[in-house]
């Protein structure tokens, strides 16, 4: 049974990669216009809405858990640390990969380093993402050093961890919220159900909630795939934080509609209204469920809640970046199959890389993370089989 399932997934992933490869060739030989459904009236599509906005948000668990363990000294969360840092690191690498498809002239991505425009939100996002990816690479690196048995490097890393984590928290707060600020400039284009001066705050809060959901989600997945999961008691606490963050977020979200005097619009019969309710229901239902104690002590239930929150988060980002702009653009946009293929390829690459990392690095390993260890950590495949 397991063999059949493995085989199935291999076929699916291979098909996705094949389609992605084809789309890549088209993108770089026939231009953005040849591969995407983007146009002058709809210049940002799936690659910005999903790959960038969702990718960065889903990786938000990284800074939140790092801060919990290193800055708040809540040691019991340490077992979650490594898988979350790993996800975040992979997530950011993949976001950058996606940008290489989306930018019209990707080979000039370094221009943001030399030609400055500090008044641009995009400029700020570019710098934060770049710096934070470097921070994540460093935070992730101990798993490598310990694997390679480089004790001196491990010691240096231990010394700089705390400032590094602090830097990571600040950078993340800035760019998680700035992704929302990107849309502050389109007050006449973005639908009033989503345009708000509070967009940066909404993006920040929802990124924390989804970061927590991802911790639960990954733990559930790895329980199935590798038989390595996190303790239920820990996951329950993570779910609690998630529910509280969502409650604050949803309260503010609706209060904001009242403040802006557009609350009546949530009852008008428009496609946007349906999407608005879908998005918020996907967030409100798991929030309510997580507040009920019974569900919280059921791993399957927790996993289900996490999936809902992730779905609600994706709906929100796609609503802000795609659905909420359709009406004013006057031209409908739906991604081409090639845009979808590239996106799926990137997601699949994330799963494959995570899988490899779990197999060869000590990702899910309880206790003693900071100890300077030499040699093959318990529970990982010996390096020889990797080389």
């Amino acid at each position, binding site marked *: 049974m397991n063999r059949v399932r493995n085989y199935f997934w291999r076929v699916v992933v291979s098909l996705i990669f094949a389609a992605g490869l084809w789309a890549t060739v088209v993108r*770089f*030989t*026939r*231009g*953005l*216009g*040849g591969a995407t459904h*983007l*146009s*002058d*009236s709809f*210049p*940002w599509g799936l690659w910005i809405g999903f790959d960038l906005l969702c990718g960065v948000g889903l990786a938000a668990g990284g800074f939140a858990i790092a*801060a919990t363990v*290193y*800055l*708040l*000294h809540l040691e019991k969360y340490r077992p979650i640390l490594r898988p979350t840092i790993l996800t975040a690191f992979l997530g950011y690498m993949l976001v950058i990969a996606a940008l290489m498809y*989306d*930018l*019209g*002239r*990707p080979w*000039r*991505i370094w*221009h*943001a380093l030399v*030609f*400055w*425009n*500090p*008044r*641009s*939100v*995009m*400029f*700020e996002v*570019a710098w934060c993402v770049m710096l934070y990816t470097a921070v994540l690479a460093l935070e992730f690196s101990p798993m490598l050093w310990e694997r390679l048995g480089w004790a001196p490097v491990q010691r240096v890393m231990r010394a700089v961890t*705390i400032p590094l984590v*602090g830097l990571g*928290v*600040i950078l993340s*707060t*800035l760019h998680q919220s700035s992704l929302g*600020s*990107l849309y*502050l*400039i*389109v*007050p*006449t*284009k973005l639908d009033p159900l989503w345009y708000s*001066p509070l967009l*940066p705050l909404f993006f920040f809060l929802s990124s924390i909630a989804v970061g927590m959901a991802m911790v639960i989600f990954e733990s559930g997945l790895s329980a199935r795939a590798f038989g390595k999961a996190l303790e239920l008691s820990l996951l329950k606490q993570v779910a609690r934080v998630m529910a509280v963050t969502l409650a604050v977020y949803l309260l503010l979200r609706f209060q904001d509609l009242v403040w802006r005097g557009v609350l009546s619009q949530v009852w008008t019969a428009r496609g946007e209204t349906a999407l608005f309710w879908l998005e918020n229901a996907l967030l409100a239902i798991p929030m309510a469920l997580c507040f009920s104690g019974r569900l919280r002590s059921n791993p399957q239930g927790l996993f289900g809640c996490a999936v809902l929150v992730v779905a609600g988060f994706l709906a929100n980002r796609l609503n802000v970046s795609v659905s909420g702009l359709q009406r004013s653009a006057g031209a409908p946009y739906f991604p081409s199959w090639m845009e979808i293929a590239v996106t799926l390829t990137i997601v699949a690459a994330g799963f494959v890389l995570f899988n490899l990392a779990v197999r060869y690095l000590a990702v899910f390993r309880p206790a003693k993370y900071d100890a300077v260890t030499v040699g093959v950590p318990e529970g990982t495949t010996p390096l020889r089989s990797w080389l």
Partner: protein
Amino acid sequence: MRALLVDITKCIGCGSCVAACREQNRLPVPADGSWPSQPDAQNFTVLKKAAWKGEEYNYRRLCMHCLTPTCESVCPVGALRKTAQGPVVYDESRCIGCRYCLQACPFSVPRYEWTSLEPRVRKCNLCEARVAEGRPNACAEACPTGATIAGEREELLKTARARIAAEPEKYVSHIYGEHEAGGTSVLFLSPIPFEKLELPAGLMAEPLPLLTFRVLSKIPHLVATGGALLAGVWWITNRRQEVAAAEAAEKEKQP
């Protein structure tokens, strides 16, 4: 500062401005000389028709050359810039192709070369070279009726006000571009309500870049306060742990 005044009452829809713009910017000319319904990567200005009360009117669309351009403020690499002389110009050598300018422009002006492998953003540059030489803009020079005239913005505003005052029954009492999005260097006078034209209505009188600047300007504070806060939290929790560890050691010593 150079500006254009477009008086829709005078426009006969001949297309001289479209042709002159193509020549000035070396854009391809279709055999029949026609133009598309919207500006595109090869047509920086086009003529549009509007109907009202049984009459037909012609008006142009082109980059508005905002006084505080949204496109300039959003471009991460500073590829778009408002020059002191008025034009909002594009520096192809900087552009990374993020297309934030297309997304953000309140007048939906910038266009992209979607099928090119070295795509550029395309839009009217207010004849930057001509302006530098003190010559009139190509479109204004070509216009046979004076529907488009070039001049200093202040002068053109005076002209526009004078025209409205002289013939109030002929004009809507509004100069589009005087305040829209913080003011623009392209001004419109219209005989019919502006909502009947395809110009965005309801734009705020403040420059749009203020919307983001209000948030961005808080960042230095956020970084400073956030950094101090984090350091404080770390110190307290760390201290607590040290105390706990010391107490535990104390206990062990006592028999």
